[in-house]
């Protein structure tokens, strides 16, 4: 879809400015209810799109080739006319830094914070010609699974506005599902791209740890965080991945592995592919409707000639506990810098200690405070070995489970979430039930492997997501399988609601 849009813009059949305007109109009409955006940058976007149109028109008049350049907007450099995302509007999760544009992490503590630099992914997208419309709502500091932990307002699920869109990339997933933007970026620490993709009926990928630069992503849990795209289709996902993936000298954890042309593998036959289905992901706690949709999806893969077998990841049951030690421990350290000294909220109160505690108590919401306390405890003298160190050891076991499974299977299939989107307020009083929403996605982050969530059916009229997991740097294989499934189910009745942008 995006590729077609770019072609139309390049040929002059569609004006980038009109496309931006159409998105802004849709946002104006729908976002009052949905609450996807925290900050809109419509004027800059329109200006940048207009300049792209002018430059393209100039080149066409001059009979120019694709070698020319179009000047870009405030945050963009110059853009080549053959740029992959020329004129395509997009939205950015509000924990990814954008130079000159407010970046709050949906937190009071960064309410007025304007970064002096852009994240590497933002620079790459701008170099590819994409046009940023604004910053999307999220659970504060990416801590949450429903979007309700935003310090400002919750986001609603476009498929049913009484339901949550999932989280923490709530605004990004809902914005794509509602057709407000062709694509958005999210971040995934324990499922924060995949789970909202599943709840909203869109495609969301968590790349291999190190595949996409984290430079400029406000850290939650550094050893787990990855930026990933939310799109309407698998092909769009592949396209955005081609732009954002790759080594970044500013991120010491980013991988030096070459980036394949992901779109080239789409459409390749998946016949003979060996797919494992870990039984631990289909046991207790999985809703019946979800189970049925997954079963049907497994059948579709068999029809495509894949070998689908049950397998086991025996340490799965410990993953949630490991995650809730490792992630808060890292967060307690990562979030220490929000102290009122240099930027963000400052609540003065007598001496320096008073300023620290008042700033942080008023600046952080309850879930963030809970996790900082959990993490501080897990790292404290006398508890470190029993909690943090033990968790790291079990994390290695979880990782080994996957290595073992991938010695026998090309990919693994599982539900993305044990349930469909739940109602707003349904789980806010019970953190543990909220944590369970990520039980199927967390092991992937612990192991650092890539995974995608794609729509695979409906339950109670709400989307169900299929999670496809692969070994490190096997994004291409994952996309190949996802694309094959998408094509095979193109006419399925549950598709009517999917990607319902007008």
């Amino acid at each position: 879809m995006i590729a077609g849009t770019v072609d139309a813009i390049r040929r002059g059949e569609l004006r980038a400015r009109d496309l931006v305007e159409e998105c802004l109109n849709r946002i104006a009409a729908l976002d009052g209810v949905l609450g996807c955006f925290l900050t809109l940058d419509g004027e800059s976007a329109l200006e940048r799109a207009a300049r792209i149109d002018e430059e393209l028109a100039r080149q066409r008049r001059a009979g120019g080739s694709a070698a020319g350049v179009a000047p870009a907007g405030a945050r963009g450099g110059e853009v080549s006319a053959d740029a992959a995302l020329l004129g395509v509007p997009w939205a950015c999760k509000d924990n990814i830094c954008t130079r000159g544009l407010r970046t709050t992490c949906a937190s009071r503590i960064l309410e007025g914070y304007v970064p002096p630099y852009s994240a590497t992914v933002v620079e790459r997208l701008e170099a590819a010609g994409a046009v940023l419309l604004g910053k999307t709502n999220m659970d504060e500091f990416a801590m949450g699974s429903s979007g309700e932990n935003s310090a400002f307002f919750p986001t609603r699920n476009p498929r049913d506005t009484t339901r949550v869109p999932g989280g923490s990339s709530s605004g990004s997933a809902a914005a794509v599902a509602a057709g407000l933007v062709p694509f958005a970026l999210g971040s995934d620490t324990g499922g924060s791209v995949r789970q909202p993709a599943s709840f909203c009926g869109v495609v969301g990928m968590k790349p291999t740890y190190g595949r996409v630069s984290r430079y400029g992503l406000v850290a939650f849990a550094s050893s787990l965080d990855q930026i990933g795209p939310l799109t309407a289709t698998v092909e769009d996902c592949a396209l955005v991945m081609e732009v954002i993936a790759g080594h970044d000298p500013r991120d010491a954890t980013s991988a030096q592995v070459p980036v394949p042309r992901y779109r080239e593998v789409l459409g390749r036959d998946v016949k003979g592919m060996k797919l494992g289905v870990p039984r631990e992901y289909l046991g207790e706690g999985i809703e019946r409707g979800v189970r049925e949709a997954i079963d049907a999806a497994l059948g579709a893969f068999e029809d495509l000639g894949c070998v689908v077998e049950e397998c086991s990841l025996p340490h799965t049951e410990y993953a949630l506990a490991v995650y809730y030690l490792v992630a808060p421990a890292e967060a307690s350290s990562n979030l220490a810098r929000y102290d009122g000294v240099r930027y963000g909220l400052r609540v003065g109160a007598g001496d320096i200690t008073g300023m620290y505690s008042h700033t942080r108590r008023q600046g952080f919401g309850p879930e963030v405070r809970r996790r900082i306390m959990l993490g501080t405890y897990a790292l404290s003298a006398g508890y470190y070995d029993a909690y943090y160190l033990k968790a790291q050891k079990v994390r290695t076991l979880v990782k080994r489970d996957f290595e073992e499974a991938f010695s026998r299977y090309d990919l693994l299939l599982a539900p993305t979430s044990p349930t469909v989107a739940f109602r707003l307020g349904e789980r806010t009083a019970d953190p543990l039930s909220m944590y369970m929403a990520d039980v199927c996605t967390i092991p992937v982050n612990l192991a650092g492997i890539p995974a995608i969530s794609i729509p695979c059916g409906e339950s109670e009229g709400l989307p169900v997501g299929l999670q496809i997991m692969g070994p490190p740097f096997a994004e291409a294989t994952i996309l190949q399988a996802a694309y094959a499934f998408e094509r095979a189910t193109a006419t399925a009745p549950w598709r009517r609601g999917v990607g319902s942008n007008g």
Partner: protein
Amino acid sequence: MAEVRLPGGGRGGVPAGWEAVIGLEVHVELSTASKMFCHCSTRFGAPPNSQVCPVCLGLPGVLPVPNRQAVELAVRAALALNCRVATYSKFDRKNYFYPDMPKNYQISQYDLPLASDGYLEIPVGEGSKRIRIRRLHLEEDTGKSMHAADDIVTARYSLVDFNRAGIPLVEIVSEPDMSTPEEARLYLEKLKAIMQYCGVSDCRMEQGSLRCDINVSVRRPGEKAGTRTEIKNLNSFRAVERSLAYEIARQVDLLSSGREVEQETRHWDEAAGCTRTLRTKEYAHDYRYFPDPDLPPLVLDPAWIEEVRRSLPELPDARRERYVREMGLPPYDAGVITASRALAEFFEETVRAFPQPKTVSNWVMGEVRRYLNEHGIDPEEPGDIPVRPGHLAELLAMVDRGTVNMRVARQVFAEMWTSGRPPAEIVREKGLEQVSDEALIEKAVEEAIAANPAVVADYRKGKEKALGFLVGEVMKATRGRANPQVVNRLLRERLGPPGQ
């Protein structure tokens, strides 16, 4: 100022009947062009907050990328201190809140340091003593707070300069192998010399590029070590020695009167000359160290470590031995000159142009060091010594040839120090060539004898010292240029032996 009075009979600042157990933690800023994890400059003395970027300010979303040069300098330091360099080490976060620390954690190395198990030798009496080094690790420096009062608690406001934040440091932890304040100072001096020799750091204590914390306890000989205290805020070698003498006396005094030493961190008050409680054990930080997830482990190739080892220059001990062996310098002179790399370089360059090492050494030990001390210069940068080695060699050659006498030479040296001009030029301009022309000197001798009959009488009565006065008069008359030997000879010829 309250100087500590020590009970008599002790050894070098340790009261008799007691032993001190001393260990040092030294922070050395590495001489890299850019900071540990970003590209900002490390230049000292720039306007506050002018050498900062999103990374060293700890802005949301930034990531650290290790400076290769810092790793290499740290490895050099480790090898020069005879440490075992780990081929696998890692970075950890040390968590605590302080406004001069942008992230409220410091990137350091905890349980797997870059290097361990080294040593250095300090001179003790005629021989030397080996001080073991437990570990050496890499970390980033913090910013600098300036309080509008004595400390952050009582200050109405505080200002922070982040220029220093993120400058690479090595922390070098000794074993508690020192037993007197003097040994602690000698250890620190040797450490500084080694760091300067291998180009790791300029080690300027007054600029904070060499900083030191001390752990000290006392015990009765043969007993196990007592409770130790930590001393902070030491800004000079003198402070190291003085604070230790004070703290040892304080601990001995407590224990002798049946009281106990508290395990605590104490602050050295330079003006008052005493240590004061900074924080007690209950308020010790829990740093919650854990591996920094933003930084992959530091894996070093053993072949590369060997390459660094081969590139190490001659270190102070080796150089001192060479001066004794090849140049025939007394071990003491060789030790003093090699304690500073810059001084040793100055010495060698002078010797190259004027190959009489002992003469050069006398000048370096005498005039050169005297001027450095008078001007408060710690000669570690080229150009810090305003006299060029070639010029000093020229001056010594003039003395050697008899062109100028020693007295004039000192006068010329003073002029060289202030103007940096070559000695021949100064001598020519001021007409300072030595006068050995006997006719000319004879005239001055006659005049001196004629003008001072009383002194002459004294001399004749047997007062040998009276001759010195007459020599002085003759030198004065010739503006110091007369050859003193000739003056002496002529005076004696005129006056005959004393007492006649």
